């Protein structure tokens, strides 16, 4: 989740290596993310590397067929398509001749084989193109040597090398020679005008398999001798296992074994239904130490934190006390969000086969490296004994950053002495979550002589607070006296990252606040944002990584494309601009009244994510991010009563459905900036845009999510109902 700038200074010798393949062809390996790790890393011992260890590489067969291994986990964000596109572009091969395969984990040499923080393309942009270009140059050098000409005379196109006299050789013809070539120290990358793959609509590489139902996901994985484990866990956070009776479970035909591990009990069976039935037949009693928490406790505790004085200051500019003391007007508002489960549609699951000489792990995981390390530590094994394969994931949203389910599989397999796949039921998945924590924000602004002179953002959260550069996001740098303070309540309810951590709610709070501030100042809502941005221009503060110029452009484009302020009667608009995950976004929500109720009809979304690698995939991410943001702001709610989650399945937890999804109109800014992430940044602004549009329609401002929990705030005044 690092938001630091990638350091692109690396030594080529440290990260490239080639070798001949036994069956013919060449393999080009590269140590992708060690090469651009922000901190200095120890040099890689090349002699110790085995090509099967490389986390990403190109394979060229004698017949010219190209296989590109995609290094990072695929959760639906599209990197299994877009990362290989970067290599293929510079390798100069026809995309429809490339076969893409998922790389496996190497725990020994690499970092950031991670799906998180919308950083895969941003960190991969330079190294992946360099790798493709290096392979291409070696193939050219091999051909030039055979012809006895200068490499500079040669050109390539779609896997064919041509010299000045018009002779041609294919990559397959020279691949064996190329494997013995010295790795060039410098290669030239293509100009943008020369791109044939980057910037072109490129279809998802797994599309055929998805629409024909081929096995792709962790839940689809099968191995000879594998048994299914259904696990009973404490029903409440804060409970431990007291005693249990497994006689009923063991009577069920097909149940193989019942195994206790820690405070959990696993029922093992040959098939999933029998394992689930077996679990239902278990009888267990639980004990607690009086620390069971309820949503009403969190509500009270978080308000207490905001009212109190026990804060950590993450950024302080000027003197907010003075600014508030001398203000003409002050606005203070508090915003509240619930816990949220991730609800990946593929429930958590993982395969583990722990034997005396190795540990084989297969499944959907966003953090393969960390998970493998944790399992090695827990089982007191060496990380080198672990072989981890990543499957395509039926959603991630942050939930699969945590390897608790893989750990369970490893522990059970270790105890049972069998290959085991742990399968969560939906109820298990919702009840054993690592939730987005409940959070409250209090924002206070000082206005003097028509200017915003002070801004104080306070966060009270369960378990953990905002981190990284978030306190330096807009409006940091725009207001002279500015402070961000955070406080937390330590809970036994497990919490963690949820798509666009913190900003997924903070954007709603701040952008609702700006609207209300503009109303109090009696200035145009968009103009207030543009005026604030002027003050950031030319800043020398390195912590501020959003660009006021790029933000200004997305705002102006959104105003133009949405017809802001020029909509016909009956269309109510809400405006939001936001920066997170290194991308700049503006969104306008259009709300209309149908049957007396406000309905979100359309979101206009303007995005500056630099060069767009795959426009087709980018539009999908943007549309999905917006709809996810609208859905959770409108409907997402999750409560606890004495430590027990109050929603167990989709009958009691409302996710947005097709009839509720607005139209999404996308505009991508055209520029030459290096690409930044798209998996997350369009989600946070959506809730704020909807809230601001609902205010325009109903006259009522929303301070709490989800909006549908407060139907009295969604009533449209009589005079506004048209027709």
């Amino acid at each position: 989740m690092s938001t630091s700038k990638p350091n692109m200074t690396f030594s080529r010798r440290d990260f490239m290596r080639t070798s001949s393949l036994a069956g013919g062809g060449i393999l080009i390996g590269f140590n992708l993310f060690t090469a651009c790790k922000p901190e200095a890393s120890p040099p890689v011992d090349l002699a110790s590397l085995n090509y099967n260890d490389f986390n990403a590489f190109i394979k060229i067969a004698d017949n010219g067929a190209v296989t590109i291994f995609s290094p990072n986990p695929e959760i639906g964000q599209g990197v299994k398509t877009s990362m290989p596109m970067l290599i293929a572009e510079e390798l100069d091969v026809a995309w429809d001749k490339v076969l893409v395969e998922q790389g496996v984990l190497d725990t020994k040499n690499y970092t950031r084989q991670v799906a998180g923080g919308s950083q895969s393309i941003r960190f991969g942009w330079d190294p992946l193109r360099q790798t493709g270009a290096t392979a291409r140059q070696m193939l050219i050098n091999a051909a030039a040597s055979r012809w006895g000409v200068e490499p500079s005379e040669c050109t390539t196109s779609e896997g064919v090398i041509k010299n000045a006299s018009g002779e041609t050789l294919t990559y397959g013809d020279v691949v064996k020679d190329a494997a013995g070539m010295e790795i060039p120290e410098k290669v030239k990358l293509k100009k943008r005008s020369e791109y044939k793959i980057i910037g072109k609509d490129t279809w998802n590489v797994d599309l055929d398999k998805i629409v024909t139902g081929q096995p792709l996901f962790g839940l689809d994985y099968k191995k000879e001798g594998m048994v299914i484990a259904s696990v009973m866990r404490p029903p409440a956070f804060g409970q431990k296992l007291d005693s249990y009776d497994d006689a009923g479970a063991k009577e069920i035909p097909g149940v193989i074994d019942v195994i206790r591990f820690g405070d959990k009990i696993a029922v093992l069976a040959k098939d999933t239904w029998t394992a689930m039935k077996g679990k239902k037949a278990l009888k267990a009693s639980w004990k607690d130490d009086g620390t069971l928490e309820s949503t009403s406790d969190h509500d009270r505790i978080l308000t207490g934190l905001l009212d109190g004085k026990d804060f950590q200051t993450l950024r302080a500019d000027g003197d907010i006390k003075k600014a508030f003391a001398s203000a003409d007007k002050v606005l203070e508002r508090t915003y509240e969000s619930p816990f949220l489960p991730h609800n990946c549609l593929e429930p958590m699951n993982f395969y583990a086969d722990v034997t005396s000489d190795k540990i084989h792990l297969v499944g959907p995981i966003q953090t393969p490296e960390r998970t493998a390390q944790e399992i090695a530590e827990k089982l007191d094994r060496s990380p080198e004994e672990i072989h981890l394969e990543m499957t395509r994931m039926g959603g991630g949203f942050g939930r699969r950053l945590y390897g608790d389910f893989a750990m369970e599989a490893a522990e059970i397999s270790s105890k049972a002495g069998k290959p085991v796949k742990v399968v969560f039921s939906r109820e298990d998945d919702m009840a054993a979550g690592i939730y987005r924590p409940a959070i409250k924000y209090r924002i206070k602004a000082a206005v003097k002589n028509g200017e915003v002179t002070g801004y104080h953002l306070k966060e009270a959260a369960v378990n953990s607070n905002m981190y990284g550069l978030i306190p330096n996001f807009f409006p940091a740098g725009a207001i002279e006296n500015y402070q961000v303070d955070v406080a937390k309540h330590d809970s036994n309810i497990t919490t963690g990252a949820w798509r666009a951590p913190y900003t997924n709610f903070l954007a709603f709070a701040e952008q609702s606040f700006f609207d209300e501030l503009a109303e109090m100042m009696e200035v145009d809502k968009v103009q207030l944002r543009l005026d604030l941005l002027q003050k950031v221009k030319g800043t020398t503060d390195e912590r501020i990584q959003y660009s006021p110029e790029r933000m200004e452009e997305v705002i102006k484009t959104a105003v133009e494309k949405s017809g802001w302020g020029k909509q016909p009667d009956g269309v109510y608009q809400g405006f939001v601009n936001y920066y997170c995950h290194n991308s700049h976004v503006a969104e306008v929500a259009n709300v209309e009244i149908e049957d007396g109720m406000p309905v979100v009809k359309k979101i206009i979304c303007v995005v500056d994510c630099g060069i767009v690698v795959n426009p087709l995939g980018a539009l999908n991410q943007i549309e999905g991010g917006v709809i996810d943001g609208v859905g959770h702001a409108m409907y997402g709610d999750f409560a606890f009563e004495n430590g027990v989650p109050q929603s167990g399945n989709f009958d009691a937890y409302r996710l947005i459905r097709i009839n509720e999804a607005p139209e999404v109109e996308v505009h991508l800014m055209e520029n030459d900036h290096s690409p930044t992430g798209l998996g997350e940044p369009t989600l946070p602004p959506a809730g704020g845009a909807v809230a601001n549009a609902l205010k325009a329609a109903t006259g009522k401002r929303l301070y709490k999510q989800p909006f549908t929990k407060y139907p009295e705030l969604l009533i449209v005044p009589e005079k506004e109902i048209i027709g």
Partner: protein
Amino acid sequence: MANYTLNINGKSREVDVDPSTPMLWVLRDHVKLVGTKYGCGIAQCGACTVHLDDTAVRSCQIPVSAVGDKKITTIEGLSENGDHPVQQAWLEIDVPQCGYCQAGQIMSASALLKRNPSPTDSEIDTAMDGNICRCGTYTRIKKAIKTAAGNLS
């Protein structure tokens, strides 16, 4: 345990399972057709949608003992070569993100078009609101259904 002879994708398949086993798990664990997905187990998400004769049903709610001699069609059997008009439209529009829900979406959409070859927006909503897409590909699903409807007419 009991023996059942099932008609799955035009083939006769024999299974020996507990009569209460839902078709979903018979397909996934016993017949090794894993295209039909588990999402909720209570007919709320639509990931397990298959056709029973020509009707879209949630296979998590149908015990194997209730199937009888009805024809079961799964995503694997929707077309011979993955070229049903709905599958083709899904390919053309590049609908999926993670892809997990899409088999269920395609089975619901193909059943809709079989009984109503040119559905309106609200008819699409009504037929498809039982299928959750957690990634939010709804706008593309709608577009693909309209594309398929165009291709069918």
